[in-house]
């Protein structure tokens, strides 16, 4: 069978959608970081910056915990995972991951991270766990 050659000349633009929000229950607050799109070499700096802001909110006492929702994230590279691991090192049990796609869970298992991360099925479950 003959091969074919495809030359792509345009760059597709959908990248990283990321936002920070706070959930409250009385005086207690948690920070939720919603990440969608993908974390790769083109977006890892933005992801790192936003994660740092979330971590700082917890470290400075403005929030009880940081919850990272990955529901709409299609890919995260090793640098992005390193950012998550570093946040976990700083926050320990005050960091939770929620709505993690199976493909990313598999990568975390491959790298031996799954036993070190606090993972919830949904954001609401994670929020309730910290705000109860």
């Amino acid at each position, binding site marked *: 069978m003959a091969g074919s*050659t495809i030359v*792509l000349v345009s*760059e597709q633009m959908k990248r990283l959608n990321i936002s920070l929000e706070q959930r409250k229950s009385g005086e207690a607050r948690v920070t939720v970081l919603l990440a969608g799109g993908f974390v*790769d*070499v*083109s977006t890892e700096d933005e992801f790192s910056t936003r994660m740092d802001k979330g971590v700082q909110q917890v470290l400075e006492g403005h929030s009880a915990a940081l919850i990272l929702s990955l529901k709409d994230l299609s890919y995260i590279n090793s640098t992005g995972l390193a950012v998550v691991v570093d946040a976990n090192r700083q926050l320990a049990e005050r960091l939770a991951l929620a709505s993690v796609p199976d493909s990313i869970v598999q*990568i975390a298992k491959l790298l031996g991270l799954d036993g070190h991360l606090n993972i919830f099925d949904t954001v609401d479950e994670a929020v309730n766990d910290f705000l109860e």
Partner: protein
Amino acid sequence: MSEQDDAYVTICIPATAGFMRVVREAIQQAAEDFGFSEDDGAQIVMAVDEASTNVVQHGKGEDPEHHLKLYLRVVFSKDRLIVELVDEAQRFSPARKQRTDRGRISGQRQDPRDRAVGHSYSGR
């Protein structure tokens, strides 16, 4: 089916950060078409993305204006999926780096068809 009859696809893209998504989508589709599970496909995608990213981050050497191309070749063989990445990056010489420890590293440009990464994934 002989190796000569293997089906293959070659994609040529600029070795820039913005095009890594194209690499991942092509590999993901190839892994799915070949019959890999979603989990195995995710691992293959990550391996190829990391290798491609190395080219983007380190392939330009001392010349940030150098326009690199990255060739991704996917071969659908009888019992394995073969992924090859070929780049035009400057050759890295550890011996030369040692000699120019604090100085500029000037690499020798390699044959653009030199194979940077080649790996095959077996099983369906």
